[in-house]
C-alpha cells in the first residue's frame, strides 16, 4: 500500500513531519517498508533556456546549442533531439549529474569534434515515461536555474506500507489517516458524501444468479448509469497522484476507479454502457468460458470464478479485473459504475488460480467495507460528473447490503489480563472511539462496556482483538517486562526425551570420529527415493520446487553421497560426512523416523587416510563403517548384548561387504558396508564409499532401574592368563560364531576372546581359512594348574569344532 504525504493530508489535518509519520506508522502496526522520493534521483536536473541552436558542422542530425541554466554564461551543448531549438525551455543536466536511465554520471564530451558540456534531457532519460523522441519542453514561465523536481512538483516522498492481511481499512488512505489520528498525530478529516439524486431509472438491470448456497459469493451489487459524459484525461492533480504511487493514468473514468481504490479502499469498475448488450447478470463462470481482460490477456475460466456477464458473454471477472470489450475509452459517452461486494475467500482463490494480481483483488480478498458500497458509488458519480459531466441515473442495488452491526462485551480488565499494562478506562475508551468503535456503557457495571465494531473492521471479532487495538495505539513499549521464572524454584529438571538425548549424543559421537555434520534437503528426486525403497505416491510433492526435490527421503544416504560427490568435484575427494535427521516411511506421523548415517569417501578413514610418511592408509572400507556404527551404539549407551549381526544389507550396499544390525528377527536397527557400485552410479557418484545408517527410534531403551547404583564390580585377585588357538574352518564360517562358541565353552572362566589372525593361502586347503583366536581365562577362586588349563583348552577346541566344524591347525 502506497501513499504520499500530500494525499494523506486530504484526510488528516496534521503538522507532523514525514519522519514522525513514518515512525508512528511502524509503531502502530502499519509497517513502513521504505520511503522513496523520486526527487532524490533527479536532484541534479535544472530548468534551462536554449539561447541559440545551430547546425552541427560535422553531423546532419545534431545541433550545437548555447544553453543558459542559471549558472553564469550560457554553455555549449551538442543535442540530437529534433525539437531542440532556440528560444525553448527544457530540462538540463550539467556535467557531473547522474543520469538514472543510463546509470552514468555525465562527463564533458567531444561529439563529432565539437565540445559538449551537458545534456538536454528526454522524459525517458529521467525515467518519467517511455518518451525518448525529443527533449522535454517546458512552458515559458519555467524559471531558469530552478531544480526540475521543484518545478514539476516531483519532490513528493512515497511511503510504502507493508500491509498485514488483517487490515482492509488501511488499504485506503482514509483508513490510514484514522489510525494516525488515533495515535495522536492530527485530526481525521471526515468528508461527508452527498447523495446524488438520480434523474432517471437505471436502464440496465442486474441479476444475481446464484443458488441459495452460493448467495454469499455476491451479497450486493450497486449500479448506476451516467449518460452524456465526455471522457478524456483526468485532471492533472489526480494524474500526478496516481503516477506518484506508481499507477499509469488512463482516462478520467478509469482513473476515478483506481483513485478511489487507494483513497477509500473501495474498488469500483466502470463499463462502457454502449458496449454492454442487454442487462447484466452476476453468476459463476461456466467451465471453459473465456474473457479477454483489461491486461490484454485471455483467461479461461471455470466454475470457481464469479463473473459479470451480459447477453454477449463475460464482461468482467468479479472483483479481480474488468473485460477489454466493455472497457471505457475516449469514445465512451454512457458509463455504468459498479460498486459491489464479493466473497473474500472466493476472490482470493480465483485470483490465485488465474494468477491475476490487481489492486481490486488486493482489497476484496482482505474484505471491503460493506457499508461503503453505495457511498462509494455516490463518490465515484460525483467525480465522474465533475470531470466528465453527464447525467446520473438512480442507483439500483441487487441483493442487499449485509448488516454490519456487531458488538463485543468488553471488560476493561481484559487489557491488564492479556498485557499486564495498567491503563485508565478513559484512555482505553478514547483510543477505541478515535478508531471508530462505538462504546455503550453498561447500566449496572462501570467495569465493562459494549463495544460496537465499525463496519470497516471485519478483522475485529473478540476481546483479544480490542486489546490489540488498544495496546498498539497506546504503545507496546509501555508494557512492562515482567519476570516469569520457573514454576518450581529449584534446580532445573531434565527435559529431554530419550530420543532427543540420543539425537544430540549421536551428533557429538560421530563428529568425534572425524565425520563432519551435513544438513541436506528432506526431499530428493523420485528416482533416488525409489532406489532407496522410497518414492511412494503419498510422499511425492504435488508442487516441488524442482524436479530433483520431489520426494521425501527414505534414507539419509542419497543426500550424503551426493554431498560427498559435490565435495569431490571441488577437489576434496576424501570426505567423511554424517547427518542425523528425519526420514520418511509414509505420510503418517509415526512413519517419520530419526536416522543417523555417515559416509566415508575414498581415504577418509577414522584415523586419517591417504598417503602419509608413516604409511599409506588405503580407502575407507566396510570395517570403518562398522566401527562407526558400533561406536555410535556404544556412545548412546545401547546394551549390545542382544545385538545380532548378519552379513548382507539392502540392495544399495555391496552384497559381500555389508552387514545388518538387529535386535531380533524383525527389529532391524541399521546397516553398514561399502556402497554398491551400481548404487553409486545411479547417484551420479564415484567411490568407493563406506557407509552406515542407524534408525535411532528403533534402538532399545536402557532398562529402567530403581536407583542409579551401578552393578557390583568384581575384581579377581588372580592373574588372568591367555591361550592362543589356531583353527582351520570352511571359508564361509563367521568369525563371530567361532568366538561365540569359544566363549560358550566355559562361561565363568572365559573373560574374553578375540581374533588376532585370519589367513588363507599356502598351507591351508582350498575353501578353508585359518582363524587364530586368543582366549583370556580369568580364574575366580584359585590359581589354575596346568591340568586345569589343559581341560579348559580341550573344551574350547571341542565346542568350537562342534559349532563350526573347526579343527586345530596342525
Amino acid at each position, binding site marked *: 500500500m502506497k501513499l504520499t504525504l500530500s494525499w494523506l493530508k486530504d484526510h488528516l489535518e496534521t503538522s507532523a513531519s514525514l519522519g514522525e509519520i513514518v515512525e508512528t506508522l511502524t509503531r502502530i502496526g502499519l509497517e513502513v517498508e521504505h520511503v522513496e522520493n523520486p526527487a532524490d534521483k533527479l536532484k541534479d536536473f535544472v530548468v534551462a533556456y536554449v539561447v541559440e541552436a545551430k547546425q552541427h558542422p560535422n553531423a546532419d542530425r545534431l545541433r550545437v546549442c548555447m544553453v543558459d541554466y542559471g549558472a553564469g554564461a550560457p554553455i555549449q551543448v551538442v543535442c540530437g533531439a529534433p525539437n531542440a531549438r532556440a528560444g525553448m525551455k527544457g530540462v538540463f543536466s550539467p556535467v557531473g549529474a547522474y543520469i538514472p536511465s543510463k546509470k552514468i554520471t555525465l562527463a564533458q564530451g567531444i561529439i563529432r569534434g565539437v565540445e559538449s558540456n551537458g545534456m538536454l534531457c528526454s522524459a525517458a532519460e529521467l525515467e518519467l515515461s517511455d518518451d525518448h523522441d525529443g527533449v522535454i519542453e517546458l512552458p515559458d514561465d519555467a524559471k531558469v536555474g530552478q531544480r526540475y523536481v521543484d518545478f514539476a512538483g516531483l519532490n513528493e516522498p512515497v511511503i510504502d506500507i507493508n500491509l498485514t492481511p488483517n487490515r482492509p481499512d488501511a488499504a485506503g488512505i482514509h483508513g490510514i489517516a484514522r489510525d494516525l489520528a488515533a495515535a495522536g498525530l492530527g485530526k481525521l478529516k471526515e468528508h461527508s458524501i452527498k447523495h446524488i439524486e438520480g434523474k432517471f431509472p437505471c436502464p440496465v438491470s442486474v441479476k444475481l444468479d446464484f443458488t441459495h448456497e452460493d448467495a454469499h459469493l455476491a451479497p450486493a451489487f450497486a449500479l448506476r448509469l451516467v449518460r452524456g459524459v465526455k471522457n478524456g484525461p483526468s485532471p492533472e492533480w489526480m494524474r500526478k497522484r496516481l503516477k506518484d504511487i506508481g499507477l499509469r493514468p488512463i482516462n478520467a473514468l478509469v482513473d476515478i476507479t483506481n483513485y478511489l481504490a487507494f483513497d477509500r479502499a473501495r474498488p469500483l469498475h466502470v463499463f462502457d454502457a454502449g458496449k454492454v448488450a442487454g442487462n447484466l447478470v452476476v453468476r459463476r463462470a461456466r467451465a471453459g468460458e473465456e474473457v479477454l481482460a483489461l491486461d490484454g490477456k485471455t483467461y479461461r475460466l471455470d466454475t470457481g470464478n464469479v463473473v459479470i456477464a451480459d447477453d454477449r458473454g463475460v464482461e468482467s471477472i468479479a472483483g479481480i479485473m474488468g473485460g477489454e470489450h466493455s472497457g471505457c475509452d475516449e469514445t465512451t459517452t454512457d458509463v455504468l459504475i459498479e460498486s459491489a461486494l464479493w466473497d473474500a475467500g472466493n476472490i482470493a482463490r480465483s485470483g490465485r488460480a488465474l494468477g491475476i494480481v490487481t489492486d481490486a483483488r488486493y482489497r476484496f480478498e482482505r474484505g471491503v467495507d460493506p457499508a461503503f458500497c453505495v457511498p462509494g458509488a455516490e463518490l465515484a458519480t460525483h467525480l465522474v460528473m465533475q470531470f466528465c459531466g453527464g447525467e446520473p441515473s438512480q442507483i439500483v442495488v441487487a441483493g442487499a447490503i449485509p448488516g454490519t452491526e456487531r458488538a463485543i462485551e468488553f471488560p476493561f480488565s481484559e487489557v491488564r489480563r492479556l498485557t499486564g499494562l495498567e491503563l485508565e478506562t478513559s484512555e482505553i475508551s478514547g483510543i477505541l472511539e478515535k478508531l471508530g468503535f462505538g462504546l455503550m456503557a453498561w447500566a449496572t457495571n462501570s467495569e465493562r462496556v459494549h463495544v460496537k465494531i465499525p463496519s470497516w473492521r471485519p478483522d475485529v471479532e473478540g476481546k483479544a482483538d480490542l486489546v490489540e487495538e488498544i495496546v498498539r495505539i497506546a504503545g507496546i513499549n509501555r508494557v512492562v517486562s515482567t519476570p516469569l521464572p520457573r514454576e518450581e524454584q529449584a534446580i532445573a529438571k531434565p527435559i529431554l526425551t530419550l530420543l532427543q538425548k540420543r539425537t544430540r549424543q549421536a551428533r557429538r559421537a560421530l563428529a568425534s570420529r572425524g565425520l563432519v555434520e551435513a544438513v541436506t534437503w*528432506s526431499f530428493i528426486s523420485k528416482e533416488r527415493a525409489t532406489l532407496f525403497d522410497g518414492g511412494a505416491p503419498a510422499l511425492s510433492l504435488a508442487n516441488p*520446487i524442482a524436479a530433483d526435490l520431489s520426494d521425501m527421503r527414505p534414507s539419509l544416504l542419497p543426500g550424503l553421497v551426493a554431498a560427498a560427490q559435490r565435495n569431490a568435484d571441488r577437489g576434496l575427494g576424501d570426505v567423511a560426512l554424517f547427518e542425523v535427521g528425519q526420514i520418511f516411511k509414509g505420510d503418517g506421523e509415526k512413519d517419520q523416523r530419526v536416522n543417523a548415517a555417515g559416509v566415508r569417501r575414498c581415504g577418509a578413514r577414522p584415523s586419517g587416510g591417504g598417503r602419509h610418511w608413516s604409511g599409506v592408509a588405503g580407502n575407507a572400507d566396510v570395517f570403518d563403517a562398522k566401527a562407526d556404527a558400533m561406536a555410535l551404539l556404544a556412545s548412546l549407551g545401547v546394551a549390545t548384548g542382544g545385538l545380532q549381526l548378519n552379513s548382507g544389507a539392502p540392495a544399495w550396499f555391496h552384497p559381500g561387504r555389508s552387514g545388518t544390525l538387529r535386535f531380533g528377527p524383525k527389529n532391524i536397527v541399521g546397516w553398514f558396508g561399502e556402497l554398491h557400485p551400481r548404487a553409486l552410479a545411479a547417484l551420479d557418484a564415484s567411490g568407493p564409499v563406506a557407509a552406515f545408517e542407524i534408525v535411532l527410534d528403533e534402538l532399545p531403551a536402557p532398562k529402567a532401574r530403581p536407583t542409579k547404583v551401578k552393578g557390583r564390580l568384581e575384581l579377581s585377585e588372580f592373574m588372568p592368563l591367555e591361550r592362543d588357538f589356531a583353527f582351520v574352518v570352511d571359508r564361509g564360517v563367521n568369525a563371530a560364531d567361532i568366538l561365540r562358541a569359544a566363549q560358550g565353552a566355559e562361561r565363568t572362566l572365559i573373560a574374553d576372546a578375540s581374533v588376532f589372525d585370519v589367513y588363507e593361502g599356502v598351507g591351508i586347503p582350498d575353501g578353508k581359512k585359518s582363524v587364530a583366536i586368543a582366549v583370556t581365562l580369568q580364574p575366580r577362586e584359585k590359581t589354575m594348574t596346568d591340568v586345569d588349563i589343559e581341560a579348559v583348552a580341550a573344551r574350547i577346541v571341542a565346542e568350537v569344532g562342534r559349532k563350526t566344524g573347526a579343527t586345530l591347525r596342525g
Partner: protein
Amino acid sequence: MAKAGHPINGAPNMSDLQTLESQTLAAVAAAADEATLENVRLGALGKKGSISALLSTLGKMSPDERKTAGAAINILKDKVGEALRARRALLKDAALDARLATETVDVTLPVRAAAVETGRIHPISQVMDELTAIFADLGFSIAEGPDVESDDYNFTKLNFPEGHPAREMHDTFFFNPAADGTRKLLRTHTSPVQVRTMLNVKPPIRVICPGRTYRCDSDQTHTPMFHQVEGLVVDKKAHLGHLKWILEESCKAFFEVSNVKMRFRPSFFPFTEPSMEVDIQCSRKGGEIRFGEGEDWLEILGCGMVHPNVLRNCGIDPDEYQGFAWGMGIDRIAMLKYGMPDLRPFFEADVRWLSHYGFRPLDFPTLAGGLSS
C-alpha cells in the same frame, strides 16, 4: 699390573699399600667401558687379584701384625670396591646416553589429524543445543512433531481461514491428494507442534518447538527448507509483560551480551492476538553485526498472545487460560550470531564451509561453561 714390592715374609709396609691403592684407583678411573672395568676388578679383587693376594698373606702373620695389616688391607678393599661401583654406574649412564643419542627422530614430521580435530557439528545443531540449554533452565521442555502435516494442524486449528491471504503468504508444499480428497502438506512453520502440545497436555504448558519447516520459495535469502524454533507458554496468568521478559532474557543469553534492547512492533499473525514483530538493537560497523549496542534495528522474531480461537480449537478455555507464543528462524539467528553472510551454504555440505563455521565435537553448549566459549 706392576707388582708392589713386599716382603715374602712379614707384613706389607704402609707405603706399598698406598702405592697399590693409588695404582688400583687410577686403573678404575681410567677404565673406559664396563669390560675394562671388570678386568680391573679381577686384577684387584679376583681370586688372583692383588688385594686378594694380600689378604691371603694375613694367615702367615703374627697376631699383632695381622691386626694392623688386616685393618689396612680391608680398608683398601672397601675403597676399591666403592670406586668400582661408582665407576660402573657412571659407565652405564654414559652408555645409555650414547645409545639414546643415536635414536633421534624428526619430531617436526606431521602426524595424521585426529578424528576429533576434523569432526564438526553443523551450526544449526549447535544453535539448537544452545537454545535447549537456555530454555531448559527456564523450565521449558522440547516438543517435536512430524514434518508431514495435515492442513488442519498447520492452518485451520491455527485460525487461518480457508482462502485467507495469510495462507497464500505461506507458499505451501502439498502432497498429492489421498483417495478421500484430503491432502497432506509439509509444515510451513513449527506451530502445528504447538497445536499437538495443547491438544495433549493440560496447562500449564512451557515448550519450545524446534524443527525443520518448508516453503516453496527459493532465492538469495530463502531456501525451500529451513529451521524454526517456536515457544509456547499457556497458564492462567502469562501476559505480554512476561513474553517481553522471556524474549529479552533468552536473547541476552543466546547472543551472550549483558544487555539487548528490543523494539516491539504491532503486526499480524492469524494465531496470535495481539501480534507483534520484534526488532533487536544492533550495530553494523565494518559489515559485522554486533548486538547490545548501536543504532540499527534488525527484525528477529514474531510473537503474540495465543489467539482465543486457537486455544478454543485445542480444547482450552480462553477465559480460564491465556498464553503467548513466539517463533524465529534458527538458521537466521545462527547467521546473526556467528556471522555467516548467506543462508544457502547451510544446506550445501561444503566441507570447507562446515569446517570453518562448524563446531568442535566436544563444544557442547552449557550455561555453566558459556554457550559458545
